[in-house]
């Protein structure tokens, strides 16, 4: 089996980002620390678990972005992916879910993947779209918010459960190849093993220039980036911690939620 896992590098804290205005978007500062999007960690772990069930499975980890994303692709190799792919865009620019997916689809189209996995959403742009667009662009079924999957390799059938509102679950029967977007909590992402860390160190990444993989449609653009309206915020209780504690207790007391004094 051949599995592609699409991973995104995200910043650990948006407070370290610099806001640009032309075009409006954010870019990292020297203080910005990057890591793998948590939802993609679950997708990668799920691929690794499938690989353990079906020996001989190839697991390719792919990321789109500037050269900084290579550290996250390496992290995927350290966790156990067999091959790393960097689809390179040198600029820090805003990509919609469709834009990202069209670059990935340009690469994945003729590679014969049986499964394409990715996290249900990214923590930074929060679109919740890339997997669905990949399915549409590659003309493959896509199931989102996946919380379990059971593969019968002989006939390529997969029974997939997706998590919907209030924890309810919908089940589907699909045939590979298929795109699955993975919900958090489906597994416990592992820590890299020493042997994989050593292996990853000597492994080369495959690099493709994104511009050679088809051009995104850029059907939407960011008009502005800003902080949420502070006016919507409630009352910040002031003082040192003891004063805050007293103030809070007296508010709870006044509202008859707690009897105090």
């Amino acid at each position, binding site marked *: 089996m051949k599995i592609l896992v699409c991973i995104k590098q995200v910043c650990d804290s948006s407070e370290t980002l610099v806001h640009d205005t032309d075009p409006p978007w954010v870019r990292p500062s020297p203080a910005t620390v990057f890591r793998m999007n948590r939802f993609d960690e679950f997708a990668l772990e799920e691929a690794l678990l499938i690989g353990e069930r079906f020996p001989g499975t190839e697991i390719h980890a792919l990321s789109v972005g500037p050269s900084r994303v290579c550290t996250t692709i390496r992290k995927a190799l350290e966790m156990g992916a067999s091959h790393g792919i960097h689809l390179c865009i040198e600029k820090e620019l805003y990509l919609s879910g469709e834009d990202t997916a069209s670059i990935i689809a340009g690469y994945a189209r003729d590679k014969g993947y049986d499964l394409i996995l990715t996290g249900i959403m990214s923590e930074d742009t929060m679109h919740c779209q890339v997997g669905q667009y990949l399915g549409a662009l590659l003309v493959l079924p896509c199931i989102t918010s996946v919380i379990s999957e059971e593969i019968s390799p002989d006939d390529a059938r997969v029974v997939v459960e997706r998590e919907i509102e209030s*924890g309810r679950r919908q089940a*589907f029967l699909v045939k590979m190849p298929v795109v699955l977007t993975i919900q958090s909590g489906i597994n416990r992402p592992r820590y890299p093993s020493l042997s994989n860390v050593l292996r990853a160190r000597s492994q080369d990444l495959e690099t493709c220039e994104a511009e050679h993989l088809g051009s995104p449609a850029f059907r*939407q653009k960011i008009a502005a980036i800003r902080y*949420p309206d502070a006016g919507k915020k409630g009352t910040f209780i002031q003082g040192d911690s003891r004063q805050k504690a007293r103030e809070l207790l007296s508010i709870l007391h006044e509202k008859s939620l707690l009897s105090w004094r």
Partner: protein
Amino acid sequence: MNRNIIIIGEHHEGTISPGTLELLDFSRALGSPFPEIILLGSDIFSLAENLAERTGCAVTLINGEHLNLYSAELYQKALLEVLRPRDERTLCIAFSHTSLGFDLAPALAHALQAPCISSVEDIEESSFVRSIFGGKLQSVVTPQNGPVVLTVLPGAFSPDRTPPEKSGHMRIVDVSVAPVSMIPQGERASEYRDSGLHDADVIVSAGRGIGKKENLSLISALASLFPRSALGASRAVCDLGWMEYRHQIGTTGQTVSPKLYIACGISGAIQHTSGMKNAQTIIAINSDPNAAIFSVSHYAIVEDLLSFIPVLMEEYTHPPG
């Protein structure tokens, strides 16, 4: 030219979902108080008729024997039978940002060669406002000209509507779509129920900010101050295995509206706040002054939980003077 707004309605167990009614308010904010509503299902004629009566909107019911169970494949095919011939007049096709909406919207947008903007919270002229970076920042997104497919965040608009003067028109479109590449196998209820969350007057919830599982004892201690209290959790805390999923509050967990909700170390991503923002009083304790949870809180306390909760307990037990 009169531009249409089309709303894709949802229903569950014979009831129109609240998110669908919120989309009417969204449409009104876009300048179209009576959008067209599309419902999909199998033999739900009275539900569709009732919706046209209640809202005064034209309702198109796409009726098909396989449409009783959702699948992206079926619903997309069925919708395209109705939507494709009318692209030019359509300004916007709006879903709720639900498991159905976010699942279907991108593929539909792709088929219509339209942009897709998800989890929209507000409208600014011809642009749409949505949260990014866990709610710490907002982006204003402008789609290209032509139709746009949107998912609108549940709770961002009001589900209330004044009764219309006259009922909307209802039409039925029969479709004969059948599953090909994605065969629905049915639905089942959550495995996680009954954690006392619904009966509780007070819910004290833990987020990733509690740092480690052992610190849950502080959260329990705080909850124990209140007689009818229960423990809640963000999804992240359940994913880490610190609490069971039956305590999870939010989109894929439970929706609660207690008298008092205390969010401890919860960052406040929409997936969580959609499940608790209707609590009567919300108190958030977080060491990050910019945490998104503060924007849905009535009272905000910027403190480190691990030091603040013990001080709070002490002040409670030994009040001054």
